């Protein structure tokens, strides 16, 4: 059989295959260059960037849980200006689209970061994190309220012509409401899910394990929740979805695609298997071949029936 078509279109970002990286788990790409040739990926999504540099939260910032990981990094990053100066040249040297994940404490900050990225060039997409559970101001607060989520979306959209992907939080009563609001506000695509708010306690010290008390849960443990969110949002809105949350294998990724994701991001699994992205891509391709499916797009949402 001929090689199947793996290319997907995420709100105008053309990916040669549906596999990308989850923001914050793959640094700026180069960290994994010994293990993964970035140009084989569908796209590269890089660490969350803010207008000003951020130091991040107190340590410990990570704790393992059954089949999961809690993190409270707190958006440590060198700021958008540094990113533009030091990383964008590298992004420009890549043959695959680079998506920059952005965060802000105010709507204006989101817009300002987007505008700077727009001017810098070399950025194929902006993923707007309105779902970070690890920052005091902004973050998840924006993503929990459909109206505020829409406001951020509008502000970012009007600051850039780069495709805008809104990243949703699972820590809400009804994720479809937020999805509908940001779709109406002009989002080009959606990413879901960000981490689930969680915590761990050390029974020896009798204090929270993480320096920041609460953290975000990711990894295989959250996969059923993430998959459900993709399933619900696929039904509710027409936008392309980047599905993520616990994807470690091609089988996991295929579940997300069948639920309605047009692309998938590998996050925590990179820590376990630095070749996870590539193996997921290869496994998807194998599945298509074995099942005689010529085009990955025919599989998106297929579990919903006709």
């Amino acid at each position: 059989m001929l090689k199947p078509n793996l290319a997907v279109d995420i709100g105008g970002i053309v990916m040669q295959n549906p596999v990308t990286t989850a923001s914050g788990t793959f640094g700026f790409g180069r960290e994994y260059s010994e293990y993964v040739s970035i140009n084989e990926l569908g796209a590269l999504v890089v660490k969350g960037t803010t207008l000003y540099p951020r130091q991040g939260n107190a340590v410990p910032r990570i704790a393992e849980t059954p089949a999961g990981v809690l993190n409270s990094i707190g958006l440590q990053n060198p700021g958008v200006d540094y990113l533009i100066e030091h990383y964008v040249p590298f992004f420009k040297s890549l043959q695959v689209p680079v998506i920059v994940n952005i965060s802000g404490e105010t709507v204006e900050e989101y817009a300002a970061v987007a505008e700077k990225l727009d001017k810098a060039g070399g950025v194929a997409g902006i993923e707007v994190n309105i779902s970070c559970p690890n920052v005091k101001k902004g973050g998840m607060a924006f993503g929990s309220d459909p109206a505020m989520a829409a406001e951020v979306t509008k502000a970012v959209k009007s600051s850039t012509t780069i495709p805008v992907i809104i990243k949703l939080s699972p820590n809400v009563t009804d994720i479809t409401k937020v999805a509908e609001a940001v779709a109406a506000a002009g989002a080009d695509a959606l990413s879901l899910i960000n981490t689930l708010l969680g915590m761990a306690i050390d029974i020896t010290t009798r204090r929270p394990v993480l320096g920041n008390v609460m953290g975000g849960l990711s990894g295989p443990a959250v996969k059923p929740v993430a998959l459900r969110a993709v399933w619900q949002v696929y039904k509710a809105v027409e936008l392309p979805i980047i599905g993520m949350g616990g994807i470690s294998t091609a089988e996991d990724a295929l579940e997300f695609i069948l639920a309605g994701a047009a692309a998938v991001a590998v996050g925590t699994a990179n820590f376990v298997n630095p070749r996870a992205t590539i193996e997921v891509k290869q496994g998807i391709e194998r599945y298509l071949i074995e099942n005689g499916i010529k085009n990955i797009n025919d599989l998106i949402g297929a579990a919903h029936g006709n």
Partner: protein
Amino acid sequence: MLLNGKLITHKNIAGDYYLMEFKSHELAEAAGPGQFVHVKCGSTNDPLLRRPISIHKADKDKGIIALLYRVAGKGTRLLSLMEPGDLLDVMGPLGNGFQLPKPSEKVAVVAGGIGVAPLFFLVQLLVNAGNDVQMYIGARTSQDLLAVKDIKKLGVDVKLATDDGSAGYHGLVTDLLPEKLQKVDRIYTCGPFPMMKSVAYLANKYNVPAQVSLEEKMGCGVGACLACSCKIKINGESVYKRVCTEGPVFNAGEVDWEC
């Protein structure tokens, strides 16, 4: 690199301590002292993350890497069940190791407990390079004094200290240092944070450059996730550095010991 190394030997050397040897020419070739490998313990999602373990020995000729570890929790417990012939899933060598001194320098190496793990590899290289090495090993009890024989075999003079007096000096290993430090050009240390802090204090007092190997909980091990941050002072300002890539070895004077 990412590879499956075949276990050659694996033994319980004392209490909860295990010594494991596996085959990997590439890793042995590439490894430097103070670097570590990131090990997958078990084949399932629980435990999920890899565990950082220092490179204890690297035999470039035979292509053998040795790890010395303590069973601390569920990851290392699963590790301890592996048998010769099994394949160990490792990433490495990772991190910035120790900077070697000039061959003429006199060196003090201070280990606390399992902290001796990365220091054996260092001492071996120091001896081969012709450095004058004085080794200090402290631990809770005589049972927790590890690798002593191996180090003595290298011809190095080893001073011991135990908290309970069951071997060597009865007290902290750092008590043994002051009188000696005036005579050394460089210090290397790895062990519990308070011990390394004392060593750093003494090194500063006697104005001897010192390198310490820090520990922090890790995610990726390659600098991508920013989980393993530690506070390093640069021009008086404290900034976060990644233990996995900018460390685990840092200059003692740069570490923010109050964090």
